[in-house]
């Protein structure tokens, strides 16, 4: 059985700046991620991790090479196509980026308003998801009245509530203490398995590496398998091998 990768990156290069100031940040990166995989990306600051994440998330248009997300080519894609792909991706940021003027449940509902649900369904789904992340009694709280871990859990609920096919996370535990960090990744792992979505997670945090099916390492804009974590249980998904550029 041959599976189509959900994310298929081939020989992707990316540059910032123009003319003399042009600087290459990604050098022919290739990566395939299949449905249901949890892939962690590590690497030092400035290695290009976030750039790759924003490209995969259709937040930036690709320049050179090929980048297929959910079967759609994102290199040279139009804004409308990019917006379309974004609606199938859930994002979890280092800063939770919740809307301050909205309550927890309203924040989660914002993710559902882009999809065809009735008002009733939106409210129910948002409440279910907040219950799933353990915030059933905090639904009508404003973000300023929630702790860091609680805010991050609201952000996770928001990212997952519309059942996205892909979840992209950038250091979701960086601002959290060890215990909340563990809780947060555990929730992510469990929900990802329940909903069958693919997770690409950028992290510096050694404490959460165990959730990964596979770990890749970015250094100087090049991607490699992370040798130090080969012991990590390899996923059940076929062909889940790192592709070395």
């Amino acid at each position, binding site marked *: 059985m041959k599976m189509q990768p959900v994310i298929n990156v081939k020989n992707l290069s990316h540059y910032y700046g123009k003319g003399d100031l042009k600087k290459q940040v990604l050098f022919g990166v290739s990566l395939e991620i299949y449905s249901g995989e949890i892939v962690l990306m590590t690497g030092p600051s400035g290695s290009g991790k976030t750039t790759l994440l924003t490209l995969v*998330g259709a937040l930036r248009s690709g320049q050179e090479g090929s980048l297929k997300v959910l079967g759609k080519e994102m290199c040279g894609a139009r804004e409308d196509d990019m917006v379309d792909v974004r609606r199938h991706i859930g994002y979890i940021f280092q800063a939770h980026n919740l809307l301050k003027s909205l309550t927890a449940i309203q924040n989660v509902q914002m993710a559902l308003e882009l999809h065809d649900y009735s*008002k009733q369904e939106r409210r129910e789904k948002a409440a279910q998801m907040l219950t799933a992340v353990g915030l059933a009694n905090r639904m009508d709280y404003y973000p300023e009245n929630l702790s860091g871990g609680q805010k991050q859990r609201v952000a996770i609920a928001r990212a997952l509530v519309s059942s996205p096919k892909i979840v992209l996370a950038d250091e979701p535990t960086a601002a959290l203490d060890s215990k909340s960090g563990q809780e947060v990744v555990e929730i992510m792992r469990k929900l990802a398995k329940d909903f069958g979505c693919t997770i690409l997670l950028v992290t510096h945090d050694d404490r959460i590496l165990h959730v990964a099916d596979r770990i890749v390492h970015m250094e100087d804009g090049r991607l490699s398998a992370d040798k130090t974590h080969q012991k990590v249980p390899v996923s059940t998904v076929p062909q889940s091998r790192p592709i070395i550029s």
Partner: protein
Amino acid sequence: MFDKIPLAWLQLTREKIRLVVAVAGITFADTLMFMQLGFQDALFDSSTRMHQNLNGDLVLISPKSEALIAMQTFSWRRLYQTLAVPGVESVNPLYMGLIGWKNPETKRDRQILVVGFDPKQSVFTMPEVEASIPKIKLPDVVIFDRSARPEFGPVAPQIEAGKTVTTEVGGRRVYVKGLFSLGASFAADGNIITSDLNFLRIFNRRKKGEIDAGIIYLKPGADREKVLADIKALLPDDVKVLTREGFIEFEKTYWRESTAIGFIFGLGVAMGFIVGIVIVYQIIYTDVADHLSEYATLKAMGYKNAYFYLVVFQEAFLLAILGYLPGVPIVMVLYNLTKNATMLPVAMTASRALTVLILTIVMCFISGSIAVRKLQEADPADIF
């Protein structure tokens, strides 16, 4: 669309203090516009109050006349000539002039508008003038405008108490024996009415045959337009014949076009408008700047630019309405204060309320469309 989360409303109301400041700013701008428009309308109203209370059908004036305070005289022969036109029943000459009135208490002089006419009939619709006709037939007797500014002295209370007030007008001793109500205008702070002969006694350099205006009365059932055309055909170009409405319009045109006043009030309105734009722009710009990372997050989730434009314009519209509503009662109080202090007929009208409402909405939308440019800085690629 209405079952969605009202983000614009929630964002505006979340920052209570900022909202209050914004609403106060818009209310201020609205008040400014209301006051300027109110003053302007009051000017036009007050300057034509005399005209509105004339009871004739047609008015004859000199073509060189510009306004009530800048009348040129013409020969009354022209007025009596119109009696030859079929449909004209009678005529009455009108004399007008500004001259010093001595305050009976403080003895200070102040300019007052004196109107004189042939007392065989009243040229004014006010019943009090009608009733005072026998009085002003007497030499040196005048009737006084009780709505005149207080600087003319406490005349009205004494007359009402049954006394006669004696003072000097243009250096001539006169006796005030009656009252009427007309009100101050930008042109004259007060008015007195008397007979043509008394007028000429006060203005002793004026000649009887040289009048400021002529009032023409038509026979019942006469065709006003036809008589107007006939008089125009009969008389040479040294006089101008107008309907009563034309006479009112003539006065308004002068104030609107030949003085700086219309421009000044127009400028006042424009200033209120611009102050409003600046305030609303500041508020919306700050609001967008504060929520930039949130908007970028929403963009990353797949919200399109149109959504954010909608949020900004909804905020602009909400601010316009919220700022306008308290403005109306505040302005009504201010109008009342102005009316009592100036005797000018300032009052809220439905058309002005609507004008300012529309101006406010336009003002907020202009601010909104300047502030939306800030939205372009919400780049979803920057938030990771």
